[in-house]
């Protein structure tokens, strides 16, 4: 049975935000090299989609594509999605406990207070428009609070749409699906393919990245929408009988079967 396609799109988020472009900042990787995908691991991936049809012309194998976004330097996608929220809460709890311990008889020193103030960290808020990430503390990849702009962790890139000739020509039918797999926030993009029209069809993946900006003395996660392109190479071949190479025949049984 034909396997499903997995297509990893790896983003260099920091560089993409700096150059405001995904050119040179994406790496594409799929699991179909053995059937002819080209440019695996580079920005110029051409994913092979080997379609098949029965002798009456009807499509025999349904090909399914799955897109899996990932980011360089982010928390690995296999870490549970509530990791940052849990870390943030744990950090607040520790700070409160230490604050309670400070009010002893020996008085409160300014250095202790300063240290705890740093621990509270910085919050990044939603932009005024309301679209984007929910308000959260800035955490580094180890889940500790940070106020350093160089240490914080970029949120994972989010695919927002898949468009382009492969879609308008009705070669692929992409959609976002709910999934029990929390690795991708419970959502993933997948598509089925019409393999009856061979050819090379480009498509565009629209991605939302998030940039930390300071505005009115506040840190805000601003969404930055960018797009990148890849393509599919559709081929189509007739099914044939594995025993005869053509149509249905008699099973090739020996005159005397093996014992045992």
């Amino acid at each position, binding site marked *: *049975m*034909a*396997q*499903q*396609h*997995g297509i990893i799109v790896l983003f260099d988020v920091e560089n993409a935000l700096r150059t405001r472009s995904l050119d040179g900042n994406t790496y594409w990787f799929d*699991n179909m090299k*053995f*059937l*002819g995908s080209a440019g695996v691991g580079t920005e110029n991936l051409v994913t*092979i989609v*080997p379609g*098949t049809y029965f002798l009456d012309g009807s499509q025999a*194998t349904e090909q*399914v594509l*799955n897109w899996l976004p990932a980011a360089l330097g982010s928390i690995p996608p296999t870490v549970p999605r509530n990791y940052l929220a849990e870390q943030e809460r744990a950090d607040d709890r520790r700070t409160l406990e230490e604050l309670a311990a400070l009010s002893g008889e020996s008085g409160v020193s300014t250095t202790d207070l300063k240290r705890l103030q740093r621990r509270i960290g910085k919050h990044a808020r939603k932009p005024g428009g309301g679209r984007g990430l929910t308000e959260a503390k800035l955490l580094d990849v180890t889940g500790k609070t940070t106020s350093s702009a160089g240490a914080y962790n970029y949120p994972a890139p989010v695919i927002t749409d898949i468009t382009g000739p492969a879609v308008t020509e009705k070669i692929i039918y992409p959609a976002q699906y709910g999934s029990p797999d929390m690795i991708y926030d419970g959502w993933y993009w997948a598509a089925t393919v019409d393999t009856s029209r*061979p050819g090379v069809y480009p498509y565009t993946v629209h991605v939302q990245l998030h940039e930390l900006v300071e505005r009115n003395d506040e840190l805000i996660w601003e969404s930055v929408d960018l797009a990148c392109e890849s393509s599919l*190479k559709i*081929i*189509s*071949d*007739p*099914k*044939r*009988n*594995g*025993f*005869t*190479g053509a149509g*249905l*025949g*008699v*099973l*090739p*049984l*020996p*005159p*005397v*079967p*093996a*014992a*045992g």
Partner: protein
Amino acid sequence: MKDRISIVVMVDAVGALSDRTLHNGNLSLVDDSSAGSKHQGTPDLVTAVVPGQVVQWTPIHVDVQTPVEIQAIEFLSGAPVPLPADQAAPPAPVEPSAVPAPGAVPWTGVDATDSNGHENLDLLVWEGVVPYDMTPGVPYRYRLSLKLHEGPNSVLHIDSPALLRV
């Protein structure tokens, strides 16, 4: 009597490749024959068939993003068959795919090259008609060879399943 019998080959490709065997629970065969098949769910499935029926084998992978295809189905002939890899524990090294099953009916292999120049076993449909000259009551064992991805260790086989005319 049913016109068609389906034999479904369920494979844990990752398990089979890392164990280098289709045993250890990495393969399960199930059919829908109503004539009294034996050992359902095991690699030793004996499918009860009647002449004239069409038997079709279909591979299904447990992990949907792993490639699992049937490379060959070869019926073993009365010549003595040394028991190979499949019954040894721990499993012996995998036999190269190029070596035909001992005593098998000569079979050259059907061309499965796609229009892009790659071998694509998904192009093959594994089905055939049960012949009328099949001897009743005797199991006809066959070598089922599966190809998991590509490369020197990608082909694994078992010699244990059989068709039995009732």
